[in-house]
C-alpha cells in the first residue's frame, strides 16, 4: 500500500533560525553596544521584536515540525527533527514571555530559574545534534547553552558582567544563525551544498 503522505525534505527550519537570529541581533546588539540607550520606549520596541521574531517565528516552526511528524507525517525520515521541533516550540514560548516581560517592564529576576531549564534543554540539543552528526546546528545549541549558563550566573549572583557576556553569546549566535539561514535557504531553494 503506498504511503498516504510523501516525505518532504523542505524543512521550515529557516523561519525559526532567521527569527531567532534577528532577535539576537536586536537583543544582543542593544545590550552589548548600548545602542540605542535603554529607555521605556526602546524597551517596548525590543520586547516586541522578542515576541514576534524570537517568539512567533520559532513557535510556528516548532508546531509546524511537530505537525509534520505526527498528523501529517512528512518529516519523519530525519532523526533530529524531533529535537528541532521541541527546541523551536519551547524557545518560541520562552521568547513570548521574555518579550512581553520587557514590554511591560516587569522583573527579570525570576528568569534565573528559567535559565536552569533552558541551559538543560540547550545541552540536550548539543547531545542530540552531535549524536546525529549535525555539527552546524550543534554549534547553535553550544552557543544557546553558553547564553543560558551566563544568564544563570548573572541573575543568581546579580552580576551584570555575566549578563553582558550573555549579550556577546547572543550576538555571536545571531551571526551564526544568519550563516545557517543563508546556507539552508540556498541549499533548499537552489540545490547548493553549503555546510548545514
Amino acid at each position, binding site marked *: 500500500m503506498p504511503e498516504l503522505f510523501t516525505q518532504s525534505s523542505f524543512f521550515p527550519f529557516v523561519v525559526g533560525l532567521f527569527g531567532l537570529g534577528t532577535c539576537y541581533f536586536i537583543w544582543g*546588539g542593544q545590550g552589548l553596544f548600548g545602542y540605542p540607550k535603554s529607555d521605556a520606549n526602546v524597551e517596548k520596541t525590543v520586547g516586541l521584536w522578542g515576541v514576534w521574531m524570537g517568539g512567533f517565528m520559532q513557535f510556528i516552526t516548532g508546531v509546524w515540525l511537530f505537525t509534520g511528524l505526527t498528523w501529517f507525517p512528512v518529516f519523519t525520515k530525519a532523526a533530529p527533527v524531533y529535537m528541532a521541533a521541541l527546541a523551536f516550540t519551547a524557545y518560541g514560548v520562552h521568547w513570548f514571555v521574555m518579550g512581553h516581560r520587557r514590554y511591560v517592564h516587569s522583573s527579570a529576576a525570576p528568569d534565573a530559574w528559567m535559565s536552569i531549564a533552558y541551559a538543560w534543554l540547550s545541552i540536550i540539543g548539543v547531545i542530540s545534534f552531535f549524536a546525529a552528526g549535525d555539527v552546524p546546528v550543534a554549534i547553535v545549541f553550544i552557543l544557546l547553552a553558553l547564553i543560558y549558563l551566563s544568564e544563570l550566573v548573572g541573575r543568581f549572583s546579580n552580576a551584570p558582567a555575566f549578563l553582558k557576556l550573555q549579550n556577546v553569546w547572543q550576538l555571536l549566535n545571531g551571526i551564526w544563525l544568519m550563516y545557517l539561514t543563508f546556507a539552508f535557504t540556498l541549499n533548499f531553494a537552489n540545490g547548493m551544498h553549503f555546510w548545514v
Partner: protein
Amino acid sequence: MSLWDEEDVTEDEILDRWFDAGVVVLCVTLIIVAIQLSGGV
C-alpha cells in the same frame, strides 16, 4: 517628539555605531567565505 528622538548624539557616536554594525555584517560574510574556501560547499 520626532521619530528619531536623539538630539545629543555626536559624530563619534555615529561612527562607533557604523563600526559595530559593520563588524557584525563582516563576521557573517567571513564565515560564509571561510566555509566556502575550506571546501564546506
